[in-house]
């Protein structure tokens, strides 16, 4: 039978005949990952299972990125547990310190994920790799311990919601605005248990980094995966990352979709998600004039070089408003170095920004930009749940890098086109 992208990958990797959604299959995994928050629990479960060795020391990646550089004694103790485990197991891919970055920006850059692969990670934004055509999904630590020990997991084959995006994008409108629009339309449970599959002319033209931004937020609609076909752009990205032998991947033309959604993005302006759910999406114009105390540019959603270029283009020759703290966190050491070489970091610093190390830090209210009660942030991150970035009395608005940079200058939420 014809297959959706999700069905196609699961069928190829599991070797099972896939007859449609709902079927439960056991499936080998290509890569298993965890971070400094989730790995300690996974290690505890791994040991309780009686496992002595990981299934493949080249295919378990541990990235310490959430509370690093270690923010306090407790987080340092957690990282120590992860480091010692990585050493005991002889893991090839352990990252901490100068070679660590935000995991979902780092692993694609290192060529550790690619089209047609099955990736499971103890982090909900593992779905990011769907931007490269990987069936990648987040799980809890014990599921991950199981995969680390046995090299396999189980899935229920998801039904697919296909989203086709057409139209000519307006200036300052990008991948983040499109995924926010989709989440705004279908809601935070709109794709619960399902695969989101993106296509259409806008997606065909979209650079791979944008596709990863969109796939990253599939989980904010409840989806198991957010999938894109692997085309020439994907293969070029993977070659650049040092991978060999990746093949194109596309859904079958007669694939059966449970639901379809058409989005004509022509004429659409930038989008902002208001507190306290990613589904509270409104046109930026509706929020113009909303005062902000902090802007964060970074994260696994929008901390890549293309995001920093967009932000720098708006910040060049301008100053951040005196009542706003702008924090820029390039997502990986590679992005940091590239931004340095292109002069982007100088642009940020001249504008009055704090340029920090690659870390998830403020996105989850960990460190490096915590909000006080009554404060309001605009961030290029992925979640705006109550208290996500600090005090329960604080607020987080989500937007793309252009709106974030422009708003930092204006001191209030603003359409980048209206920046003086």
């Amino acid at each position, binding site marked *: 039978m014809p297959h959706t992208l999700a069905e196609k990958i699961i069928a190829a990797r599991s070797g099972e005949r896939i007859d449609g959604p709902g079927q*439960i299959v056991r499936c080998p995994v290509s890569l298993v990952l965890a971070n400094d928050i989730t790995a300690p629990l996974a290690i505890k479960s791994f040991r309780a299972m009686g496992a002595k060795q990981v299934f493949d020391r080249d295919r378990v990646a541990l990235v310490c990125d959430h509370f690093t550089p270690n923010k306090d004694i407790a987080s340092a103790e957690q990282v120590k547990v992860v480091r010692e485990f990585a050493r005991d197991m002889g893991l090839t891919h352990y990252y901490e310190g100068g070679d660590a970055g935000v995991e979902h920006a780092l692993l694609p850059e290192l060529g550790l994920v690619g089209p047609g692969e099955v990736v499971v990670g103890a982090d909900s934004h593992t779905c990011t790799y769907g931007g490269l055509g990987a069936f990648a999904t987040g799980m809890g630590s014990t599921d991950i311990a199981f995969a680390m020990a046995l090299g396999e997991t189980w899935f229920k084959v998801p039904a697919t919601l296909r989203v086709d995006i057409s139209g000519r994008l307006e200036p300052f409108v990008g991948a983040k605005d499109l995924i926010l629009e989709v989440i705004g339309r279908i809601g935070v449970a709109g794709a619960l248990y399902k695969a989101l599959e993106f296509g259409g002319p806008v997606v065909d033209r979209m650079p791979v980094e944008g596709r990863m931004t969109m796939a990253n937020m599939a989980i904010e609609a409840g989806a198991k995966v957010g999938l894109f076909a692997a085309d020439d752009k994907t293969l070029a990205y993977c070659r650049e990352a040092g991978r060999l032998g990746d093949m194109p991947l596309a859904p079958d033309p007669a694939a059966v979709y449970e639901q379809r959604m058409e989005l004509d993005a022509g004429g659409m302006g930038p989008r902002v998600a208001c507190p306290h759910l990613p589904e509270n999406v409104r046109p930026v114009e509706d929020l113009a004039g909303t005062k902000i105390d902090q802007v964060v540019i970074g994260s696994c959603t929008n901390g890549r070089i293309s995001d920093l270029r967009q932000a720098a283009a708006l910040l060049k020759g301008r100053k951040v408003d005196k009542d706003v703290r702008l924090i820029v966190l390039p997502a990986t050491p590679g992005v940091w170095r590239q931004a340095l070489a292109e002069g982007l970091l100088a642009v940020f610093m001249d504008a009055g920004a704090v340029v920090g190390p690659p870390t998830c830090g403020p996105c989850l209210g960990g460190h490096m930009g915590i909000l006080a009660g009554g404060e309001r942030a605009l961030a290029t991150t992925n979640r705006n749940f109550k208290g996500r970035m600090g005090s329960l009395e604080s607020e987080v608005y989500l937007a793309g890098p252009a709106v974030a940079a422009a708003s930092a200058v204006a001191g209030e939420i603003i359409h980048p086109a209206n920046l003086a």
Partner: protein
Amino acid sequence: MKVKGRAHKVGDNIDTDAIIPARYLVTTDARELGSKCMEGLEPGWVRGVSQNDVLVAGENFGCGSSREHAPLAILGAGIPVVVAKSYARIFYRNGFNMGLVLLEVGEAADRLGQGDELEIDTDKGLIRDLTTGESVECRPVPGFMREILDAGGLVGYAAKRLVQT
């Protein structure tokens, strides 16, 4: 499993940052996490909870991060069973893996009131509200999840498999 306890109601889309805010994720100890359960929803929430009480939630319970600390915090607070309209998928897997029983009842969750005395038979899939006399039947636990529960959770299931290999 049979459970008797009071219902603590929460709304729709209760996320993992509400269940256990990230700043408390510096431990993996269930009791310690339990002492901060729902701290992101309402500070001090857990003080109203007694051993074997039941959490009754709306749609998409447990959405957000993959942190297993969320079901652990609920278990650590003394709550062995959650009854919800629906669950976010990562949380659903995590719950069973950690030994937290999750019952999905759809709109019937609205018939259970805050503070009501509930008697739950998880094997039969029956929830009796002793305060109102209402009964709610729930979907049986799917076959594959039962295998994991029968092994005492995913750790036990994996241990069995590892012995075989």
